[in-house]
């Protein structure tokens, strides 16, 4: 089904229009086709860019843009996800109930609390050095 079209007029630097016309002629497509394709590519690229998505989320959570705008740019599913998530912020989780202080590790855990350290952040481990020497 052909989508409804809307007319757009705009001024652009002469040189870029000339370049576009040359390319369109080479590709044997209309200038309009070339512009639409270029615009489509640019939008697809932006939508997948994390920085752009972050700005869009910020704007939506801050209520600077509406659901329809998010939907038109990011698609139905992502827009619905953000809508539900935004609505959830105003809800309160059930009240946690804690009678006294939190228990100590010894009381609470059955065994030691493990501590994990990245090997790469430890001071130079000389075992490796010895084995390669």
């Amino acid at each position, binding site marked *: 089904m052909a989508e409804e079209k809307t007319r757009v007029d705009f001024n652009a630097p002469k040189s870029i229009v000339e370049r576009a016309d040359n390319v369109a002629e080479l590709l044997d497509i209309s200038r309009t086709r070339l512009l639409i394709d270029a615009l489509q590519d640019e939008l697809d690229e932006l939508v997948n860019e994390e920085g752009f998505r*972050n700005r869009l989320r910020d704007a939506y959570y801050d209520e600077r843009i509406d659901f329809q705008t998010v939907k038109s740019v990011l698609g139905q599913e992502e827009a619905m996800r953000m809508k539900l998530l935004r609505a*959830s*912020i105003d809800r309160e989780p059930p*009240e*946690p109930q804690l009678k006294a202080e*939190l228990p100590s590790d010894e009381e*609470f855990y*059955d065994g030691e*609390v493990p501590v*994990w350290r990245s090997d790469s952040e430890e001071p130079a481990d000389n075992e490796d050095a010895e084995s390669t020497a």
Partner: protein
Amino acid sequence: MDDRPISVVDTNVLLNLATPVVDGRPAAPTGADPLKALLSSYDVHVPASVVGELSTATGSGDLLSAAADLVLNASHHLTTHDVDAKIDDPLDYGLDQGESDGIWLANDLDAPLFITDEFNSTNYLFVSLALDDRNTLFTTPHVLCKLASQAILPIEYVDAAFSYYADSKQWDEQYLNQLRHKYLRD
């Protein structure tokens, strides 16, 4: 009588809460224990598949494995349910076993709180759809904020934990900032 609200959680929630506790690197927040805070102030229920998934995660010597060890050390604070025997058909929303079982359990228990960390992806939509009452759906960071607002966790700790999760889990930072403003800054 236990008057703590019933909460159903999936494997990732428990692992994510345990991760900053066992992470000995300087970037990890220190001075509090979000896993202990949750398990002490809510009556936490899980499907048996969650314990299975935790056991599978142990033994590899990495951060995830240490987090799984910690959760297993606290597993006597969890109430587990064998839901496999009761489910006729698995929930067909493309969710994994632990999540599907957890949602089923939350519906069965009429739990006022189901916690998920699946809020970065469209899985969040599926979890919302699958829960009988989607108003019971909350995320780990939202519950951490609640624990901070009740002085069960220090506000500074939760704030630092958000930065830690945003870096290590790529959680939706804009969403975290909204929660920060509502619970941690006002």
